């Protein structure tokens, strides 16, 4: 296969002019990958009236920014965005394309991968460059993208590769990669992308859009107090909230608690929720599945409260309390109020 020189391309998601955090985080990882490949970092941003976004992307590590500015792209829609992104990929021939695993990213990336007939791995928790030997044909591949993610249950971490198709594509959730320090002295190239659509702009219309500002900031929290299925109800989460407030933290939740309707999805921590790295992560009534662990295992200290002494979470928590969270949490609140 002839070498592709389009570098590592990041889809920079924007809404109302604001570039998504996950896209900036991907730029820092893209830099590492591009350096390993001896290539450059590119970004593509779509929208209408894009003014300062290209400069922001360059400051965050992009060497080239493809800008698709067109009224049909003002708000994210699958078909026009997929068309433009595919055309840029076909023209630029990147080795790797990365998307944030946001709702838009998870809508767009698979459509693009299907169009390009290439591989896509969702929710990667790590990405790096390495070699691969096909176990059957023994063909050797150099400098492939290792797409690393936990797979279902079973404490399995899978490394996935796309040896024979390009570009190699992956999605990554917010908070998994590190946010870069912007460097306004960086320079880069801005490449305007001509946008020509057939009926892509007409097949789906957005009649109304209602978006609230994010109220939960899990990523920035120094303390996260998470409740799981063991909390038992949305009323039960009031106690979790009380502890979080007292400790100056944010409320998190396991997927089980969110699925049961005890608390909103904005609070979900885990492989399919938010990844957090607080100084202290308190897991109350959470069993500690691999998927939940993936979202909080890098916390400096983990404290687990669970009535089940066999709960998997106790195997990787720094502090373990076998007890009822409805008894333990009030004691913690009291003890903290007296000591602090």
């Amino acid at each position: 296969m002839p070498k592709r020189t389009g570098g590592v391309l990041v889809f920079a998601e924007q809404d109302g002019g604001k570039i998504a955090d996950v896209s900036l985080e991907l730029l820092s990882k893209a830099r590492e990958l591009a350096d390993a490949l001896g290539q450059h970092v590119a970004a593509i941003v779509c929208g209408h009236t894009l003014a300062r976004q290209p400069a922001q992307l360059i400051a965050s590590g992009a060497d080239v920014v493809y800008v698709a500015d067109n009224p049909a792209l003002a708000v994210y829609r699958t078909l026009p965005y997929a068309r433009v992104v595919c055309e840029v990929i076909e023209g630029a021939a990147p080795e790797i394309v990365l998307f944030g695993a946001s709702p838009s990213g998870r809508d767009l990336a698979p459509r693009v991968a299907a169009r390009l007939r290439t591989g896509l791995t969702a929710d990667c928790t790590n990405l790096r460059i390495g070699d691969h030997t096909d176990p059957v044909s023994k063909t050797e591949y150099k400098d492939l993208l290792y797409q690393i993610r936990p797979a279902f249950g079973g404490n399995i971490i899978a490394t996935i590769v796309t040896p024979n198709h390009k570009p190699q594509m992956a999605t990554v959730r917010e908070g998994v990669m590190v946010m870069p320090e912007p460097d306004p002295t960086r320079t880069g190239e801005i490449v305007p992308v001509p946008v020509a659509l057939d009926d892509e702009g007409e097949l789906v219309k957005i009649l109304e859009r209602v978006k609230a500002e994010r109220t939960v900031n899990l990523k920035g929290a120094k303390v996260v107090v998470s409740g799981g299925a063991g909390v038992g109800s949305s009323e039960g989460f009031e106690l979790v909230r009380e502890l979080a407030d007292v400790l100056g933290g944010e409320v998190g939740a396991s997927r089980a608690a969110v699925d049961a309707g005890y608390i909103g999805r904005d609070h979900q921590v885990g492989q399919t929720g938010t990844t957090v790295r607080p100084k202290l992560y308190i897991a109350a009534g959470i069993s500690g599945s691999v998927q939940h662990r993936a979202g909080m295992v890098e916390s400096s200290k983990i404290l687990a409260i669970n009535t089940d002494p066999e709960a998997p979470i106790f195997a990787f928590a720094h502090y373990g309390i076998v007890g009822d969270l409805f008894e333990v949490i009030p004691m913690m609140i009291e003890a903290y109020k007296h000591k602090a």
Partner: protein
Amino acid sequence: MPLNMVVLIKQVPDTKNITAKAMNDDGTVNRSALPAIFNPEDLNALEMALSVRDEHGGRITVLCMGPPSAAEQLRDALMRGADAAGFLSDRAYAVADTLATAYALKCGIEKVGDVDIVFAGRQAIDGDTAQVGPQVAGAMGIPQLTYVAEILELTDTHITARRLIEGGYEIVQAQLPALLTVVDEANEPRARRAKLVPHYKQARTTLEVAGQIAQELDPEKGKPDKTLLAQRVEPVVADLAARKLLIPVWAPADIGADLAQCGKKGSPTQVKNIDFVTLVATDHKTIEPTQEGIEGLMHELIEDHVLD
């Protein structure tokens, strides 16, 4: 106006219920101990199709790509009210990534033909990728509406739906045919219909019939003479078909699918390796759930500057 609908369903291991019982001693999960269930959001997808049929009329075909055991989920879907089923089950489909899966399903949908709406669950609880829905839509070249929570309006040519976006929702209108991925917030799936349960319990795939008769003819090895087997199978299958209890099994040739795009061959991604991560206790401290124990813990956390 009656609509021709397809619902894509998947049989998955029950990954939401990994308890201590499903864990091996070495800290790995015993997959075979997990029951196989109907992927939860596929039930929401089926429910949405059934609601559309309640209001507008139409026909619902459920399609499933999976191993022979997944026939159980097709029976379940029929018991909930689906009109017909198609089972993509063949070695050629195995070890497929999302692209190869989407390709095969697209071929299956085209075999059903003239489909107005394809419904799929947002994602399956084993892979959690949410890729197959959009990739089927991409392969078909039709609009996709993901994260659909509600259908607001349906005409002969358009569908208007509310879909969830980050921090809110959108009301979107798409030209038909279109593919929808449905979230669990959308609805409460209806139960199996009491009258349909005993009826569809008898539904079988041709493979199941052949397997059962083979076992009866040759209890030891299950490999009787092929001609004899065919002779015995034929009337049973004909009878099931007459009673609308035969679940057709489609190999790639039956749905015009290119073998090179199915299964492992058709999968650009491959698993390079799997690491079994056993959960390791680091510096672990057990704290007593007493006032004393907890006071000691909070003191330590403050001393260590973990808490302010």
